[in-house]
């Protein structure tokens, strides 16, 4: 007698359920299979770098083409490069995001700007390097150095900051703006007093991601004055600010690029050491961005 109880699943339904479970577990397996090798790689880098890591490694001068000594010069170079890039791109990018989201009328020109932003995001980093060479060095006659490298990085990271600013602004409801306008506040007053304070976290996340991106990039700076070795003052304020705006510089990413190639007598831990320092620097910056985002989600203001 076939049971008429509708709550007992039929063979067909059981089969369906089995397939759903299969899909669930296989997609899980794929995801895990993706992440485990990455975790392994990161662990391995850390293990192999371990013999090199010390305070002296971080603060010592590069010597014998990176085969000995430390990475102080590249570390400082990356720091100032990132700082400079941020100083250029953060105001422009944030204001551009503000323009697109708060000011731009809905017309063909605005859509063209949006297309430009997405196109800019898709331009390969090596083409940015060509652009930097052509525009800043060859045409404007600026010297290859910290400033031109930072400008090239700024062009590259501009769409990142524009996009994240736009997203952050769109999380502020339109009502708030209208309420302010009705009170006689101008667009800018509204943005300054209500919109920006309430999208600050999202914008900050974008800025932090730009830092991570700028610190890790190699292609746009490798022809813009990043070099293998420079003499750095052993002490004094010059040790903390080793490069002028127009000077050539060392950078961590370029340092790793140069010592990755086969250099005879290069101890393995020196390579892995710089890889680990660069990697942890960038993961650390990204971690800060994630924390900001997490805090943001917890703190609802409306």
């Amino acid at each position, binding site marked *: 007698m076939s049971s008429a109880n509708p709550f007992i699943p039929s063979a067909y339904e059981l089969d369906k359920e089995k397939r759903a479970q299969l899909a669930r577990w296989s*997609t899980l397996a794929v995801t895990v299979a993706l992440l485990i090798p990455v975790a392994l790689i990161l662990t391995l880098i850390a293990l192999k770098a371990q013999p090199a890591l010390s305070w002296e490694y971080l603060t010592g001068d590069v010597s014998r083409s990176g085969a000995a000594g430390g990475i102080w010069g590249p570390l400082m170079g990356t720091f100032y490069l990132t700082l400079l890039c941020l100083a250029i791109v953060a105001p422009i990018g944030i*204001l551009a995001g503000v323009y697109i989201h708060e000011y731009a009328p809905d017309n063909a020109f605005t859509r063209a700007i949006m297309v430009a932003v997405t196109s800019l995001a898709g331009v*390969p980093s090596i083409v940015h390097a060509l652009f930097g060479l052509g525009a800043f060095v060859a045409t404007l006659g600026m010297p290859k150095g910290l400033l031109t490298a930072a400008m090239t990085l700024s062009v590259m990271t501009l769409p990142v900051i524009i996009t994240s600013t736009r997203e952050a602004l769109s999380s502020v409801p339109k009502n708030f703006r209208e309420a302010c306008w009705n009170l006689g506040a101008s667009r800018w007053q509204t943005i300054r007093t209500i919109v920006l304070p309430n999208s600050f976290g999202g914008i900050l996340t974008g800025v932090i991601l730009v830092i991570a991106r700028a610190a890790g990039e190699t292609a746009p700076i490798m022809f813009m004055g990043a070099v293998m070795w420079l003499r750095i003052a052993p002490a004094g304020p010059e040790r903390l600010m080793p490069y002028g705006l127009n000077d050539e510089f060392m950078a961590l990413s370029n340092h790793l690029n140069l010592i990755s190639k086969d250099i005879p007598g290069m101890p393995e831990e020196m390579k892995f050491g710089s890889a680990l320092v660069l990697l942890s620097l960038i993961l650390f910056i990204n971690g800060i961005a994630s924390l900001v985002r997490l805090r943001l989600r917890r703190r609802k203001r409306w």
Partner: protein
Amino acid sequence: MSRRTPSRGWRATLSSAADWIEKPIEALIRACGWSSIVLVAAIFCFVFWYAAPLLPKIDWLGPDGFFTSTNWHAKEREGATYGVLAMIIGNFAVAAVAMVIAIPFGLAAAVYISEFAGPRSKEWFKVGIEILAAIPSIVWGFIAITMIGPLLIKYAGATMGTNLLNGGIVLGLMSIPLIVSLAEDSLRAVPDSFREAAMALGANRWEIVYRVLFPAARSGLLAACMLGVGRAIGETMAVLLATGNKNQIPTSLTDPITTLTATIASEMGDAEAGSPHSQSLFTIGLLLLVITCAINLTANLVIRGNKRQS
């Protein structure tokens, strides 16, 4: 009741300083807003400008032609030839290998994270994907040389560790986070009412994914894959280190190759400014720019077409 209303004077303040600062600030914001359009135009112009002197002289489709030969002798002062066929093929081959890895992994991970994972494990997986996305391209190149290369020599019978397969693996891993996040976005963009309607009809989770979400998010998923391809083609440092940098058309997965991006990266440092060699590298840059822009714009059209539909 004593009403201490302020004098009418303050309300009639017609032009406080704050009102008139509006104009210059708006001008500044507008200028920044236009920056991206100016920059895109400038990138095209400058790359074109510094390639231009060579363009009329290049043989495009002849026996030593740009698109038709593999003879890349750009440094020669006499009888230089500019064949980039091997680089184009190398570029697309390495991107293809990357996509063979990245698309299944990326889509599966996106489906798991957006549809099956619990709220807590979802956060953890996202952190994992974010870490993957954060690793800079030069570190990927380093990983390719020092870790994947030896494995390929040992297990895949490669004579050189840096080759097409190595580049493909690394590029695949690099493209996965992009594909995951874009695919997840487009799955999440499917209205919950679709899911609920399917559930009310007795569909289980997998049927919802397979029969409802995939068709509804089809163009978003397609665009995610296309942008992954765009990313893979434009990638430079990882490819430069991972692919062996040899100007030849690959015949097997373990052949070393070179790409358009890697060629610029490895030769630009030696090229004298304004020389035909430098101009030829700018020409390659122009080609790259056209390819990546075409892919990105198509992908965005696909996404927008989808938005208009729904």
